[in-house]
C-alpha cells in the first residue's frame, strides 16, 4: 500500500512537472497575443506590457496547452483543474467537545485539501467515453492522528492517509443506437430535484468524510458501477418527451482509496465499500459530529432512567463494533426504474428503487453481557415522484419574478430507525417514511436595482421528513434524542453577480426548528476578468443552534464553524 502511495505521489509530481513545462512552452507562443490583448485603448500595441508578465497573470495560454489536434485525434479532449482548499476553524478549542477522549486540539487547520481532477472525453460515432480521474492529497492533521492513540481498543491505525485518493471517479462508455442510449461503467445518477437535500437523490452514496455533505452536495457524491440504459418512448396523448430509465448496480462496488479506517472495518471488504457512504474515519475526526455522551446504561448514575442512554438494550459493556457491509451477491444488487414525461409545461417523473441503506444503522447484536453494536445497511424499497414547472405570473410581475416550482416525494418502505423500546432487542425498529420537498426558485431574474451585469437567483426549499409509525420510542442513531415524526428544514439561497460574474456572492442558509438550528454558508466567488484559468472562492460555514446533539439538524456540528478558501487553477491540455 505504501509503495503504491509513493508511486502515486511520483506520478502526480511527474504530471504536474509536465504540465508546468507545457505551460511554459506555450506561454512563449502566447505571450505576444496576451500582451497585445492587454493594451489600453489609447496605447499602441506592444508599447507597454511585457509578454511574460501578462502570461503569468493570465495563468497560461488561451486554448489547449498541447494545441488543437482534432484533425488527428478526433473528438478527444483532456482538461481539468488543480484545487487547493484551505480551511481554518473559527474556534479550534471547540474540537475538544467532539471526542470522549478529550484529545487536545493541535492547531486551527480544518482542511488542507489538494486536489487534481482530470476529465477525458472521447466521442466517436454513436460511442462516447468519459473518464474523470481524481488525485487528492491531504497532509496529516495532528489532532486526528492523536485520535487512534486516545481511543484505545477500537482503533489500530493512524488516520494520516485516510483522505488521500488516486482513483478513477467516473468512467463510462455511452452507446446510442436509435431510441436507446446505454451507459456502462462507473457513474452518478441524479433523480432528485433539490439543491441541498437528498430526497429523491437515492442512487449514489456520499463521501462525507472530508467536508460537510450539506455544504458540498455534488463533490460528495460517489459514483457506482452500473448498467444504465435510457429508452426514448413515443409521445402518448398529452405526455411528451417520454423515456424509461433503468439502473442496475451490482453488489460488487470496489473501493481501494479513501477507505483506510483506523478500526480496520474495511479489511477484506474493499470489493463492496464503494456501495455505501464514506464516513468520517473516527469519532472526533474533523467532519464527524458530536458524539452523544451516554451510549449504554452502565454510563448512567444509579437509578437514572434507562432511556437517557442511546442503547438501553445493552446490558454490561458491549464488545467492539462490527461492520456488516452488503456483500457482493446478486441479491444485493441495486435496481431501479424511472419514467420521465412532460405534461404541458410540467416535467414529471416517477421511479421505483430497490437497494440498501447507504448510511449504517446501529443494531444491538448478541445476548446480554455478550452484546456488541453491529453497523448494518438494511435493504430498502423506494417509490418516488418529482415534478417541476415554471409559474408564469400575470402581467407586469412576470418579468421581475420568474418563478419555477419544484417538488419531490419519496415513500420508503421499512426505514430502519433506532428505538429505545426495550422489547426491540436489536434497538432497531422500522417504519415507512415519507420525505417531501417543495421548492420555489427565482430563476435568473433581471434586477437592475441590484446589478446591471448579472442576475438575481433565489431558491427556497422546504423539506419535510415524516415517520408514519406512531411509536414514541424512536431516537436519532447513536443518541437518546427523541426523534421527531415530522422533521422540517428550510433552505434559502440568494445569489447574484457583478462585473460580468467577476464577483459572485451567494448566501445560503438552512433552518431547522429543532434547537433553532441554522447552517449558514455565505460564499464569494471571485474570477479575474483577464483570465478564465483561475478562481478564488471564499466561504464561511457557520453552525448555530441550541441542540448540540441534533443529528438531523446539523446541530451536532455546532462548534465546527470554519472559514474556507479555495483556489482553483484550470487547465485545458488537449
Amino acid at each position, binding site marked *: 500500500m505504501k509503495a503504491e502511495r509513493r508511486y502515486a505521489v511520483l506520478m502526480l509530481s511527474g504530471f504536474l512537472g509536465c504540465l508546468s513545462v507545457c505551460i511554459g512552452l506555450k506561454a512563449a507562443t502566447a505571450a*505576444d497575443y496576451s500582451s*497585445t*490583448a*492587454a*493594451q489600453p*485603448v489609447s496605447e499602441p*500595441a506592444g508599447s507597454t506590457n511585457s509578454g511574460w508578465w501578462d502570461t503569468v497573470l493570465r495563468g497560461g495560454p*488561451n486554448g489547449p496547452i498541447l494545441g488543437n489536434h482534432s484533425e488527428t485525434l478526433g*473528438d478527444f479532449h483532456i*482538461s481539468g*483543474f488543480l484545487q487547493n482548499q484551505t480551511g481554518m476553524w473559527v474556534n479550534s478549542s471547540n474540537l475538544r467537545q467532539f471526542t470522549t477522549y478529550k484529545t487536545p486540539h493541535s492547531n486551527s487547520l480544518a482542511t488542507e485539501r489538494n486536489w487534481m481532477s482530470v476529465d477525458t472525453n472521447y466521442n466517436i*460515432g454513436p460511442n462516447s467515453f*468519459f473518464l474523470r480521474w481524481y488525485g487528492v492529497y491531504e497532509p496529516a492533521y495532528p489532532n486526528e492522528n492523536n485520535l487512534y492513540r486516545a481511543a484505545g481498543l477500537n482503533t489500530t491505525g493512524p488516520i494520516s492517509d485516510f483522505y488521500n485518493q488516486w482513483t478513477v471517479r467516473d468512467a*463510462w462508455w*455511452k452507446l*446510442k443506437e436509435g431510441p436507446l442510449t446505454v*451507459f456502462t461503467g462507473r457513474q*452518478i*445518477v441524479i433523480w432528485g430535484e433539490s*439543491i441541498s437535500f437528498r430526497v429523491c437523490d437515492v442512487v449514489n452514496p456520499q463521501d462525507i468524510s472530508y467536508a460537510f455533505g450539506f455544504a458540498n*452536495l*455534488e463533490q460528495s457524491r460517489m459514483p457506482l458501477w452500473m448498467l*444504465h440504459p*435510457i429508452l*426514448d418512448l413515443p*409521445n402518448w396523448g398529452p405526455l*411528451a*418527451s417520454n*423515456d424509461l430509465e433503468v439502473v442496475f448496480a451490482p453488489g460488487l462496488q470496489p473501493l481501494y482509496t479513501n477507505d483506510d479506517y483506523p478500526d480496520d472495518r474495511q479489511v477484506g471488504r474493499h470489493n463492496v465499500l464503494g456501495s455505501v457512504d464514506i464516513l468520517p474515519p473516527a469519532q472526533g475526526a474533523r467532519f464527524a459530529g458530536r458524539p452523544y455522551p451516554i451510549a449504554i446504561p452502565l454510563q448512567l448514575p444509579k437509578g437514572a432512567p434507562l432511556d437517557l442512554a442511546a442503547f438501553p438494550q445493552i446490558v454490561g459493556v458491549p464488545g467492539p463494533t462490527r461492520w456488516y457491509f452488503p456483500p457482493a451477491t446478486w441479491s444485493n444488487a441495486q435496481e431501479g426504474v424511472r419514467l*420521465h414525461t412532460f405534461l404541458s*409545461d410540467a416535467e414529471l417523473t416517477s421511479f421505483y428503487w430497490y437497494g440498501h441503506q447507504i448510511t449504517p444503522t446501529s443494531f444491538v447484536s448478541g445476548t446480554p453481557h455478550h452484546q456488541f453494536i453491529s453497523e448494518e445497511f438494511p435493504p430498502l424499497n423506494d417509490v418516488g415522484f418529482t415534478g417541476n414547472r*415554471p*409559474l*408564469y*405570473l400575470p*402581467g*407586469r410581475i*412576470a*418579468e421581475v419574478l*420568474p418563478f*419555477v416550482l*419544484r417538488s419531490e416525494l419519496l415513500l420508503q418502505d421499512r426505514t430502519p430507525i433506532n428505538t429505545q423500546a426495550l422489547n426491540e432487542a436489536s434497538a432497531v425498529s422500522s417504519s415507512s417514511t415519507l420525505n417531501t420537498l417543495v421548492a420555489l*426558485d427565482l*430563476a*435568473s*431574474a*433581471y434586477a437592475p436595482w441590484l446589478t*446591471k*451585469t*448579472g442576475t438575481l437567483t433565489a431558491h427556497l426549499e422546504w423539506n419535510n421528513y415524516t415517520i408514519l409509525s406512531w411509536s414514541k420510542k424512536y431516537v436519532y442513531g447513536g443518541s437518546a434524542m427523541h426523534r421527531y415524526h415530522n422533521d422540517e428544514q428550510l433552505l434559502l439561497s440568494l445569489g447574484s453577480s457583478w462585473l*460580468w*460574474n467577476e464577483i459572485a456572492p451567494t448566501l445560503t442558509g438552512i433552518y431547522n426548528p429543532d434547537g433553532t438550528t441554522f447552517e449558514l454558508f455565505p460564499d464569494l466567488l471571485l*474570477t479575474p*476578468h*483577464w*483570465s*478564465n484559468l483561475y478562481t478564488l472562492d471564499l466561504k464561511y460555514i457557520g453552525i448555530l443552534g441550541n441542540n448540540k446533539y441534533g443529528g438531523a439538524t446539523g446541530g451536532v456540528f455546532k462548534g465546527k464553524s470554519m472559514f474556507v478558501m479555495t483556489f482553483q487553477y*484550470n*487547465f*485545458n491540455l488537449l
Partner: protein
Amino acid sequence: MRTQISIGCLLVLALLMGTSPRLLAESGEVPLEKQAPLPLGTVITTQNWQQYKDYMPMWMQLLFGGDYAFKLAPNQQIVVGPLTPIPYPKAYATNTEKYSGQVGLKVLPDGGTVIQNYTAGLPFPHPTEPNIADKILWNAWYRYLPRVEINKVINSFLIDKYHKIFRQELFNDYMRLGHVSEPGLPIYTPDAPDIDLALYLEVTEPEQSKYTVSLILYFLDPQRIQEIWSFVPSLRRPLRLSASARCAPAAGSDSTTEDQKSGFNMLLSETTGKLVGHKKILTMDHIEPSYPTPITLLDRNTFHLWGGDTGVAWPPAPAKWELADTWVVEARRVPEKLAGYCYGLRRMYVEDSDYRVSGEDLYDMGGKFWKIIYLFPRLHPNGYGDVFETGSGNYIAETIDVQNVHHSLTDETNGTNFANTQVDPALWSVSRYGSPTGLLEIMK
C-alpha cells in the same frame, strides 16, 4: 494618484452623462429611391465617414464617430464592393411560393401580433401595409435556418474597457424542428411535433463552467412562451429556468435572453414594430476568406487583424462591403408589458433580400443608447446544394455595451461549423439535443 483616478472617473462619468447619450430621434432616414449608389472601391475611413452617414446604420455611425470607449481604430475602414445577390435555398423558395399566400397576421388587443396559417418558407415575401413592420419582423423570425446547424467550437471573448479578455469556448447544436424547408425532410419533425426551434449551447471551457448547458425550446404556437433549461454541473441535473425573465444577462456576456437567436429573440406577440426606413445600408455579408477557410480569433494575428486588441471587431481587407436594400424597423415591447423590461427601443436593420438582421441599436428604458449588436457572416453551404448566410452561426459577431463599457466578441467561423448533411448523424438527435431529457445524459 487615487485622487487623479477619481477625478478622471468623474470626468468620464460627466462626459458620458452629458454628451454621449443619443436620445431617441426621429428617423430622418433617406428613402431608398433617393439614395445614389456609391462607386465601387469607395473607401470610408474614420476621417471621411460623415459624407457617407446616410448609408450607415446608427451603430456604425457611433463606431466611426468615436463617441464611446469602443470605436474603430484609424486603420479600420470600409471598402465598397459590388452587391452579390443571394438566392434562397431552393426548398425554402418553393415553400415560400407554395404557402405564403395563406399566411395572415392577427393584431392582438395590446398591439402585439400573431402569425396565422404559417407553414414554411418566408411568410410575407412582399410585406405591405397594414402592419408592414410587424410582417418584416415575422419574416426575420422565420428566415431560413437549416434543420441542423452546429459549431463544435465557438470562441467567445468577453472584453472589458481595459481590453482584458475573458475567453469562453462553447459548442452549439441548433435545430429547426418545425416549419422545416429542406429537400426530403418533413416540415414538422415527428420526434418533436410541437417544437419550432431547439437551441442547445454547451460551455466547454473554462473548466469551472464546463458541461453547463442552456437549452431553449421554441414552440410552434408562437404565443406559447419558450422553455429554458440549464444543466448545472454542480447539481449534475437540469435546472428549469423561467423564460419570463427576458432581460437577464446570459452567462457573463452582454446579451440578454431577448438578444439570443442571432440578436433577435423578442416575443413577437408582445412586440410592436414601426417601419422607419427602407434604404441602402452598408452591409458586410461576405467576410474573407470565404468558407471553408477557418477564421479563428484565437489566433493572435487574426485577432489583431480584426481589431480585437485595439478597438472593436471589424472585417479586414480584402472583404468588401455592399449596399444592401435594408428595412429599418423599430421594435418595442407593447406598452402593457413594459414594466420591468429593459429595452425601450430596438432599431433593427433587416436585409430585404433574405431577412437577415445585420445589426441593431438598443436603447434603455430611459431612451439612452445602450448596446450595439452586429453580425458579419459569410456564405455557408447548407448541405443540400445551396448556400445561406442567415443561420445562427458562421459569423463573427459583436455585442457592445456602451454604457458599461464592455463587449462580447464571438467567432463562429473557425472551421468547425456545419449544417445539415455535413453534420454527424448523432448531432441530429432530438432526444439528446432538442429535449430536456437529453440533458440527463450529460456527465453520466
